[in-house]
């Protein structure tokens, strides 16, 4: 357990609306080790972004973390989010066109971040800002440019430079390439991955793209309706999924190989339940081909640190 940088322990995020109390995250636990890339995958609305917001203490009201603890470098940070934000854990968002303040030069935004976190002089900060831009492949002389003069991919590079500037140990990347052209996606992912590997920075990479998960991550967590369905070594989980939902995700991922032409894709029938219409028991059971009696009655816990599925109750998973 010692090499865990971050431990999310049984957190729930709830908010009230006029229909009652809804759980956006339900009893979620996961760990991130030093230097590793943890993927988080799941359909839109599964709670991926919410997990990132909870870790940073940036849940928008009326939502709030109603139970659980977040441990970082061996300390509970439930009440210390401000001290870790940016400096220790940073986050980048999906839409690079919206992530930079349109009215301020990128240099000003970089300097502000560096001067806030690092105890350096202004000229040293400028030096670092230039170096930061260079590292993400942007001409350092563009320090005085405004965000709108950059393309989407370039802006995401600036965003990465900003997130890395305070030298955090963990970066939460919330679908960082979803809004970009396919050809740019790979560049940005590679850049992020390489820069973090060099620095030993861990990444939580949120995505709904199984291909990205396969190519980029060391471990992967699968979220379904605010709960963890499965977590484990990426290769293990993708080649030998234990949760029927993961199995469905893997089977429904398009691939390009000689056998795949004109074959129909597998589809998981039905849709993920809305938060205000959560079924009893396992949230996935109404769509599950393998559901047994128990699945509609009791919510499964995560068995063998791997998957939350009653089918595994009596099966020891040997990795």
């Amino acid at each position: 357990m010692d090499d865990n940088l971050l431990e999310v322990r049984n957190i729930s995020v709830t908010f009230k609306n006029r229909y009652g109390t809804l759980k956006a995250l339900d009893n979620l636990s996961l760990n991130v080790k030093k230097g590793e890339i943890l993927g988080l995958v799941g359909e839109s609305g599964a709670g991926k972004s919410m997990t990132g917001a909870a870790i940073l203490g940036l849940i928008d009201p009326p939502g709030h973390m109603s139970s659980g603890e977040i441990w970082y470098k061996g300390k509970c940070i439930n009440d210390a989010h401000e001290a870790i934000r940016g400096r220790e854990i940073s986050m980048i968002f999906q839409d690079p066109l919206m992530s930079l303040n349109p009215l301020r030069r990128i240099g000003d935004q970089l300097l502000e971040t560096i001067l806030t976190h690092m105890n350096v002089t202004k000229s040293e900060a400028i030096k670092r800002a230039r170096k930061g831009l260079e590292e993400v492949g942007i001409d350092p002389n563009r320090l005085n440019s405004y965000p709108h003069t950059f393309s989407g991919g370039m802006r995401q590079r600036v965003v990465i430079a900003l997130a890395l500037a305070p030298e955090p140990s963990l970066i939460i990347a919330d679908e960082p390439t979803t809004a970009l052209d396919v050809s740019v996606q790979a560049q940005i992912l590679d850049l992020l991955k390489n820069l973090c590997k060099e620095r030993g920075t861990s990444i939580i990479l949120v995505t709904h793209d199984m291909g990205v998960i396969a190519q980029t991550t060391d471990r992967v967590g699968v979220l379904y309706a605010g709960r963890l369905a499965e977590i484990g070594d990426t290769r293990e989980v993708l080649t030998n999924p234990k949760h029927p939902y993961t199995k469905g995700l893997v089977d429904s991922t398009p691939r390009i190989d000689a056998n795949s032409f004109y074959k129909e894709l597998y589809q998981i029938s039905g849709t993920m339940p809305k938060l205000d219409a959560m079924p009893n028991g396992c949230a996935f059971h109404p769509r599950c081909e393998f559901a047994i009696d128990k699945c509609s009655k009791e919510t499964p816990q995560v068995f063998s640190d791997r998957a939350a599925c009653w089918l595994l109750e009596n099966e020891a998973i040997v990795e």
Partner: protein
Amino acid sequence: MLVIIFRRLGQSILVLFIVALISFLIFRYVGNPVDNLMGQEATLAQRAALIEALGLNDPFYKQYFNFIWKALQFDFGNSYRGALPVSELIASRLPATIELAVTSAFFALVLGVIIGIYTAINRGGYIANLILSTSLIGVSLPTFLIGVLLIWLFAVELKWLPSFGRGDVVQLGWWSTGFLTISGIKSLVLPSITLGLYQLTLIMRLTRSEMLEVMRQDYVRFAKALGLSSKQVNFNHALPNTLVPVITIAGLQLGSIVAFAIITETVFQWPGVGLLFINAVYFVDIPVMSAYLLLVGVLFVIINLIVDLLYLAIDPRLRDSNTSE
């Protein structure tokens, strides 16, 4: 950038021609200028001579450009009442209106923005909610009622402030200012509040909703995720983006402040152009009315132009784009 400025200037000049046309139409075709100037007992020959002298037989476009040409030299003819040049009448009244309008606008903008920011940052707080519900009163009460209530409370009951007039003014060249005497400043208080209250609530509510909107934007979330303090997030990131639309609206409101000054000036017998206009309407003093309309139109256009330029100064995206908005 220069292209935008020139285009805006071009648009402004076009609008000015239209305003001048309306003003001219009123001047020329509302009532009969000859009747107004000579009365009923003039002979036909006298009338014909005057019509010729005024150029009323000239083709329409010629009269229109003649009107504009004279207006450019501040020549709006003589008032039917008292026969003073209209431009002199307006010049003597303009400082009062401008000082009143500027004071109210300043009061409305500064307080509106500050309170708006406060209620946005402290959303849902007790004081913020109280301010919000009170502000509804500001929007819904008619101006004259606010004026009368203020007069009743502060002038009649408490006797703190005067209820009418400008107090003592100091003459600086042709400009008369009330800013330099105590009674002048005291006299400004109630009319400025009356005139500015509506704008104040408007700007406050606008600032609040814009700021709340901006605080939901990704760049604010990102600034927070980067660990900037809430002061940095609110004032370096959220506020400038909030102010762009607020400045536009506030600028445009300055125009309506001048226009709405008519009511306030009437309630407080404030000797400005608004009061002049009301009296002109009362006596069907067409030249004064037409000159007033032209003046307000020109003010609107100038203010619009300044707002557009401010907009350019604030928002780099507009500065770089050579095409339209």
